[in-house]
């Protein structure tokens, strides 16, 4: 089922865990299948310097969660918000078509954690 890069990411995700005293943190749930993705970030000067994720859900969510953390690192909040589902899908090496929702969940988590950051740091 899972091969190449996607398998690699499922088995050996990076950025696993939770930041201590993060700048922001959010957990999103796929309402249909109950998959959960938690993202915590550290933001310095408008740039995401660190990100960690936790996940409960089907296997590809591990890959998309890991990739979400990887992709937002070093990006401005604005640039992070531009990351698309398709970009994550490509970056993990292509999801099976029944698992596209795993990429959606990752994008949702990015939006949610940035939302949280902005709530905590109103302009």
């Amino acid at each position, binding site marked *: *089922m*899972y091969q190449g890069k996607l*398998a690699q990411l*499922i*088995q050996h*995700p990076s950025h*696993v*865990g939770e930041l201590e005293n993060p700048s922001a943190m959010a*957990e999103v749930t*796929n309402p*249909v*299948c*109950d*998959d*959960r*993705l*938690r993202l915590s970030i550290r933001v310095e000067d408008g740039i995401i310097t660190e990100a960690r994720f*936790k*996940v*409960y*859900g*089907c*296997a590809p*969510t*591990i890959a998309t969660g890991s990739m979400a953390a990887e992709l937002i690192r070093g990006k401005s909040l604005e640039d992070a918000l531009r990351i698309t589902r398709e970009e994550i899908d490509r970056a993990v090496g292509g999801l099976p078509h*029944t*698992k*596209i*929702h795993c990429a959606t969940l990752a994008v949702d988590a990015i939006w949610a954690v940035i939302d949280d950051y902005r709530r905590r740091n109103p302009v």
Partner: protein
Amino acid sequence: MKRIYLDNSATTAVDPEVLEAMWPYFSEEFGNASSVHTVGQKARAAVEAARARVAELIGAQPGEIVFTSGGTESDNLAIKGVAEALSDQGRHIITSAIEHPAVLRTCRALEKRGFRVTFLPVSGGGLVEVTDLEAALREDTILVSIMMANNEIGTRQPIEEIGRLIRDVRQARGSPYPYVHTDAVQAVGKVRVDVNELGVDLLSLSAHKIHGPKGVGALYVRSGVLLAPQMHGGHHERDRRAGTENVPGIVGFGRAAELARTHLAERQRHMQQLRDHLEEGIARRIPDVLFNGDRERRVPHISNCSFRYIEGEALMIRLDLRGIAVSTGSACASGSVEPSHVLTALGRDRELARGSIRFSLCKDTTASDIDTVLDVLVEEVAALRALSPLAQPSETRV
């Protein structure tokens, strides 16, 4: 990577001896068993020899065996066949909430045709209570269909008791109905199955669960039992199931049945020992695990447990990536998860149902397979818990 296959409840590898028996019937003795000429009669003889072997495995007469395309068709034929044949006698059927979909969905289909179905609940251990069954019996009950062994958790239902109860009910009523059907697909070849000891009228089998080929099954139909055929066509299987007989498949089924009968005791012991070894290892080495289903009354080859905080499909996939094949009660397709109807019926909450893994063994499983599985499992469960937002840090031990 050496692969370890612990998904034998889904399907088993065809035994080399079975394949050898089937072999000649593809291209050499390829006749149609309905043909009167020599080529056909050789096929006929092979089919009848296989029928005798399948019958012997379950203590039946050869004439009581109807070959089908698999366990699913056997269940469909038993339930729809009785419903159609006895619809004048009554339209009520009793089954359980934890049957295989081949039984459950067939019953649902009959509900649309005007039959009433009672789905008996099960205990927390996954067992039907005979008193519940007794209470559910109605004047117009024509069929009781309770599986012999559950395919997800391996629990064995009290079929002998059910058989006795129904025999008494029939005697009191002076009626040959209701009939008793049991789906024994997961029991045959794993534990002793004897239609007379069980007191059943119909019993479903499938070849590919006992190291025979896929696409062949059988329905035991006790002599005298009324059954309306569901596949119409030629006069095959004494007018009970039309369609050119799958000769090599049937021959393979016969050989698999013979091997299952001859080696039953040793296989049973072997699987049970290894299964117990697996469960001991899990219980000892992994915290927060719940075993699903009664630990005593069950078949020897299935173990089912729920790992808290983690999701079954993810664990299954990670095990697969390390060469270990198991199955899970949670299958996520297109973003919707159907939690296992069996675990739900046992009262497991959504999280536990989703975190369930089924390990199913076979005669070829080795102790070293189990040791490897345990080592890998300990690592993978810990890794997934480290990833899980549900687990508290204190609960995750790597």
